């Protein structure tokens, strides 16, 4: 899946592989490990099937980039103050969120 139903491109923001929240997100939502996710991204990039996610260094940066980028998706570990312009599409208690985003 490359775009949302309205045609907006999906832009994926992630934290570095070694970040504890990235590991938690991989195991909790994606039911996988960071090395498997990286392998999948590499396959997409080097076959020309998709583009890599944008890596940011902190959860604050990730939240700000998702908030300011149309069609962006990402994850955070705590509720920030201003959440009026983002939509929470899944939490630990509600892990029915679609797990796969295809490029």
């Amino acid at each position: 899946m490359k775009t949302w139903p309205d045609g907006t491109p999906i832009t994926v923001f992630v934290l570095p592989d070694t970040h504890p929240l990235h590991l938690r997100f991989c195991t909790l939502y994606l039911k996988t490990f960071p090395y498997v996710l990286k392998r999948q991204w590499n396959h997409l990039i080097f076959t020309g099937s998709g583009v890599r996610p944008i890596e940011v260094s902190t959860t604050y940066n990730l939240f700000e980039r998702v908030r300011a980028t149309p069609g962006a998706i990402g994850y955070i570990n705590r509720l920030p103050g201003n959440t009026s312009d983002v939509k929470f599409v899944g939490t630990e208690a509600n892990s029915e969120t679609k797990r796969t985003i295809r490029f």
Partner: protein
Amino acid sequence: MKKPSYRLALMLAGLLSGNGFAEQQPLSLHGFVSQGYLYSKNNDIFGDSTDGSWEYHEAGAGGHYRLSSRISFSGQWFARDAGRGDNGSVRTDYLYADLLLSQGTDSGTGLRFGRVRNHFGFYNSTRDVFFTRPSILLPQFYLESFGVRELFFSSDGAQLHSYWDEKDYYLNFTGTFGKNKEVGSDTVANILGSAATLAGDAELQSPISAQLSAGLPGDRWKTALSYFNAALTFDSTSVLANLDVTLTALSLQYNGRKTSVTAEYSLTSINSTFIAPAFNLVATGNTKSEAAYLQMDYRIDEQFTVYGRFDHRLGDREQPNRTDSSVATLGSRWQPHPQWLFAAELHGIRGTTPIPIIDNRGSEIAERSEHFIIMAGYRF
């Protein structure tokens, strides 16, 4: 100082139009370069490796351009030097337009036109990228030493691709229909041996390939069934030859927190016909060969992985003792940074088919040999 809590993991999506940052750019670029060093005993591989060889490097660059939500273009250009088997010239690895026919959250279908990569096994479609291979050298399953890369590697034609996602599993399908293409004289020499000294034209006709893959969410387990068929014709003043080649493969992989296990098996069937009108001779035959490997990777930490593999091939099922070969591999991979990768491997080889003939012209290939290989790679 209070440590941050990672108990919560909230998935979020942006709703507003951007004001501080631009959305994902329509053009994205990528590239890679890797350099190897080989030292071997008894046989040469990729240059004069018995004296130490640096004749093994790969470099590629490409991009992906999104024209609209339904149309994108992708291309990659690539150069590889691998002893006498590859001379480092730049070639178009793939270059295609991708038209998305349908897309939902659970399924989608698209059609690619141009030069597309053939999906065969887990690694053929990215076989030249050090960062995506399971080791520095691929197992015999991928026919690396046979000098037939150009036949196998990509097709000029159309490719249908689809995915279906369910809660508990996913399915992918890729089917490729290629047009006929001329085959280079080096590849003909690698396939037909002495017959290749005859001047003639060789063509790969109607190549088709298909792959159905499936897995559990997150690829804890994944599997693939791959198929490739093509006819190779050779036409000279004195000999006509036709080889109908079919490859079928089954792949299976388990991915755990620390351990991955990968196994792949392939069966190659070749129906051959040789006609020599001058001698009133017609010869036909069928050869079936098999290749399989089992590889285990163990991740010591996020940066360091060790792996071992046993790789076996029967060149002719009817003559198993005369045509079999095996390779035992021990290796380690170190990735100190996402853009840098280093690896080292030891190979113990029994049999002659894993050894490229082209690197050992003029000398007899020894039945046993050992290789030590190191490689460094950078990507962007």
